[in-house]
């Protein structure tokens, strides 16, 4: 069954995904044997991350979209008695999550170095990357769950040990929230596997493709299982209401931690919804879509409104994530090609722009030792390059056409509009609100008259410019020419939408209005 879905072409380097996942782990081991005070810690950590990035870059270029199935499949039985296997693969949906992870980790690592216990810091970062890459590649429910949990630990330590402010408290809050979600997800994983095995009359298996393609689980049971998964993902995203760990964790985390939290970790939730919500439980996904869309819209409006009232720059950006992730959820649960592609694209875009914003705020904090917006002002005069970079990223985050944020946001709204018109109209209001708080923050921090310490702020160093440069290049490139990404995504997304139509045909409520063929 897997073979059918595998990409037709046999890759030249079948074990590449194993190499991708293990490179950071090997890096962690290498770092562990280096002396505690070695000056090589940061370069070595970055080197392993760059090696992983190079491998991923090869995969992105080599990947042929084909029929939309999984490529570079590795399927190695692990604990055969319970049908648990080490199964990795990549398709158009996970490809760019992989790329985003491989890109942000080396940048976050090079962006800043902690003042104490640097060795553990970089080891944790490498383990964190290992976990994140694993989540996006795992095609076995149990393996996915394990990677999902692996991610928690290093993040907890990174926030707690190297954070600012109330770091310990924020770390515990982060951990308890996500553990709570994971616990239910484990129940969901086990229940799904057992229900499938019983209904299909086959031995126990955790294989994602097998379970998803068979669709033998009864509708009511599938809905419960969906909810169990959904709760785990909802905490991670986070959906409005479950979000209160996010501003604390983002604000108190060290710069690299914030970049990875916002850039990668939040996407574990939205990616989970696509891969383990829509694909595993198409009928339940459609059933709960209005609810999820409502959560998305509430997140967009609520996140923006609360962000507008923040006095701490980093906290403001953290709340902006709640709004942006709301857009992504909206796109996913539009359950059509436009919305889903937009949501996936927006996951990448949000990682790039918010990652860049957290880098910039981190560098600002290193210089001024404050993030209070009222303490800052007029910084464009002493630091024009930092201001220009911040402005470009802000405009991308606002969704200005020509920059990366627009295409994703537009497709999300377009998709949502054709399946659930009024949700999309409400969400479009969020487009106005995003401009309110982000431009307010930019204006207060960089414009006006600079006095005191603000007037002497050093501009971005060459190293900082080099770290942020790839993100700026992507902001422009993806805004003007998103095609390489869209083309690789499309077959997989279409495959998923067909899967949804096949097992849960769109009813009258979600039928799109009569749409002719697009102009060629």
């Amino acid at each position: 069954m897997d073979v059918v879905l595998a990409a037709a072409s046999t890759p030249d380097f079948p074990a590449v995904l194993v190499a991708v996942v293990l490179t950071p782990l090997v890096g962690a081991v290498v770092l562990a044997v280096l002396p505690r005070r070695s000056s090589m810690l940061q370069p070595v950590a970055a080197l392993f991350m760059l090696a992983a990035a190079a491998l991923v870059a090869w995969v992105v270029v080599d990947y042929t979209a084909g029929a939309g199935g999984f490529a570079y499949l590795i399927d190695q039985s692990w604990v055969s008695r319970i049908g648990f296997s080490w199964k990795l693969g990549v398709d158009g949906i996970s490809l760019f999550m992989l790329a985003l992870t491989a890109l942000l980790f080396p940048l976050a690592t090079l962006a800043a170095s902690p003042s104490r216990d640097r060795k553990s810091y970089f080891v944790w970062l490498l383990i964190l990357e290992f976990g994140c890459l694993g989540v996006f590649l795992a095609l076995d429910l149990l393996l996915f769950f394990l990677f999902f949990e692996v991610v928690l630990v290093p993040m907890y330590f990174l926030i707690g040990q190297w954070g600012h402010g109330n770091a310990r408290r924020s770390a515990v809050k982060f951990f308890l929230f996500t553990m709570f979600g994971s616990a239910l997800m484990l129940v969901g994983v086990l229940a799904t596997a057992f229900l499938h095995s019983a209904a299909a009359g086959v031995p126990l298996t955790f294989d994602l493709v097998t379970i998803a393609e068979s669709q033998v689980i009864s509708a009511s049971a599938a809905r419960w299982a969906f909810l169990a998964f959904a709760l785990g993902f909802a905490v991670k995203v986070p959906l409005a209401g479950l979000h209160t760990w996010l501003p604390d964790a983002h604000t108190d985390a060290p710069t690299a931690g914030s970049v990875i939290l916002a850039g990668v970790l939040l996407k574990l939730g939205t990616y989970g919804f696509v891969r383990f919500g829509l694909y595993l439980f198409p009928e339940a996904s459609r059933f709960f879509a209005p609810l999820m869309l409502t959560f998305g819209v509430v997140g967009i409006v609520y996140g923006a409104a609360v962000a507008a009232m923040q006095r701490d720059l980093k906290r403001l950006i953290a709340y902006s994530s709640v709004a942006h992730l709301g857009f992504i959820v909206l796109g996913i649960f539009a359950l059509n090609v436009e919305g889903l592609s937009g949501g996936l694209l927006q996951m990448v875009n949000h990682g790039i722009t918010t990652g860049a914003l957290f880098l910039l705020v981190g560098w600002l904090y290193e210089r001024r030792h404050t993030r209070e917006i009222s303490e800052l002002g007029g910084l464009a005069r002493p630091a024009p390059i930092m201001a220009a970079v911040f402005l470009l990223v802000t405009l991308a985050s606002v969704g200005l056409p020509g920059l990366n944020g627009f295409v994703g946001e537009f497709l999300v709204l377009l998709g949502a509009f054709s399946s659930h018109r009024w949700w999309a109209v409400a969400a479009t209001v969020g487009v106005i609100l995003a401009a309110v708080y982000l431009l307010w923050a930019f204006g207060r921090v960089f414009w006006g008259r600079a006095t005191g310490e603000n007037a002497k702020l050093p501009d971005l160093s060459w190293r900082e410019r080099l770290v942020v440069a790839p993100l700026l290049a992507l902001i422009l490139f993806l805004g003007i020419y998103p095609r390489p990404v869209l083309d690789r995504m499309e077959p997989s997304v279409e495959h998923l939408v067909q899967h949804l139509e096949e097992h849960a045909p769109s009813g009258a409520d979600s039928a799109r209005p009569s749409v002719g063929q697009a102009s060629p």
Partner: protein
Amino acid sequence: MALAELIWVVPLAPLVGVAALTLFGRRLGEPRSGQLATAAVGISFAASLVVLGGLLSLDGHERSVVVKLFSWVPIGDFSADLGFLVDPLSVTMILFITGVSALIHVYSIAYMHGDENYPRFFLYLNLFVFSMLLLVLGDNLLVTFLGWEGVGACSYLLISFWYGEEANAVAGKKAFITNRVGDFGFLLAMFFAFGAYGTLSYAGILEGHAANSTATAILLCLMLGAAGKSAQFPLYVWLPDAMAGPTPVSALIHAATMVTSGVYLLVRFSPLLEESSPWLGDVITGVALATAALAATIALAASDIKKVLAYSTISQLGFMFAAVGAGAYTAAIFHMVTHAFFKALLFLAAGSVIHGMGGQQDIRRYGGLARLMPVTTLTFGVGWLAIAGVPPFSGFWSKDEILAGAWGYNKVIWALLLLAALLTALYMSRLMFLTFFGERRWNADEADPHESPRLMTIPLIALAALAATAGVLNLPFSHGVEFLGRWLEPSLGHHSAEPGFGGGTKWVLAAAAIVAAAAGLLAAWAIYLRGRVPPEKIERRVFARAWGYDDAVSNFVGGPGKGLFSALARFDASVVDGAVKQVAALPRRAGGLLRRVQNGLVRRYALALAAGAVALMIYFLVRAGL
């Protein structure tokens, strides 16, 4: 190869300017960065002329060429190209955009002399021209939206160009956010259009078929977007504040080009307008009339020279929208072009006055400048006569055509527009007389009025020549001399309204327009030069305070609007997060679990989890023999 296919050169030239100024702007410095930017726009204008030639060599019905560069957003059923539509309408737009821009660039070389961010100014200016060209050239709504937002961003950056002043920074933000309200409409229009036609290309939409109600919904949403960008009621509030930007910016963006985008957009959709519900025309003319009259009264009492011109722009845009609503599309474009000439001229001449008066913008502190600034006075005078509607200056012809269109649509609308035209003549004459004539109301020690340098006066003279003569583009005497009308016909389809009345009525209407202009002029003469009536009689306080509308908007946003947001923020901190804290505190009360958690339980669990994962991994590695 058809010359029209060279269209890509037109936006490319300023884009190259943007790239060069981004990379080398600081090194080029003053004045070379300004010269480079000017050359880029000059090339763009030359290329536009070539394209015009190419289009003229084609037969009328062939004058619509689509040039596709690449596929921008292709996914699923949706597809939008980065492509250009070259037709009489878009070529008319690019000609006056690049032409006026080039003159304003030349002027800016001198005007911005000595500014510490001189290269950055020209970078933004070139970026603006590039975006504006995308807006009018796009062959689909998405490319137009790309330009639409691009000009908005440039407007934001240029209004706040002197960001050291808090007020300038705030004005830029206000412009951006108010425009976003309009963008909400633009986005919805695109969603509706894609749903109904399956495409966003103009050709696809205008040739496609959809229910009357859908067409109406699309146009209503577009009207919201147009009201934002073109400063119509109720979204005009940002434009007067936008005067915080340098004066060449006010001339280029906030008078001649960007603010006319809304009119362009609706004219582009004129075939659809004809198919939509008839009440839509009433909505558009209603908004337009309210804007034209309201802004004219405010201009009557404003005392800042740039604010007078800003309200005048709002009012003149109202005239153009009224033409669109009445179905007189050619008249709307005609007035857009003549307005671009005379309003850019008025702003640049005002900049020359401000320059000469050492930064003073209050017309109550001007007076008797005619002798000291002869070129400025003369050119401003041409602009004044043109906007006031005095024949044979350009504004008379285009305004007359709008009035004729309004007469054919609805006599009440015609009457109200005529009143607005009278007010226009009145407030512009007031501005003219108070600035250049009468007694000097300034001290010699605070200002030393002088004529501006050659680089500033040459563009003034060129624009004055255009503002005086542009009426010949479309003379009403016979079909043969209605050049613009015949030229635009392929773009507008056969819908553009032919007034359903004879030549006799035309003469009567023209006479009425002349009488209105003369009445306004004479009234101003009596009040401001002869002192027959005290100015307070017409400069009502309610006008000066913009009828309280601006304040009402600010008070709402700053009061209940902000209150709602901060209530939500408090709700988030106390209720949502508070509930979480309460849940977390339950076990502590029960048995101190949380304390144990904080004392390291989480840490131990986390480490165990990590160790377990690593152990499993090693097990796997061994098994897999890797």
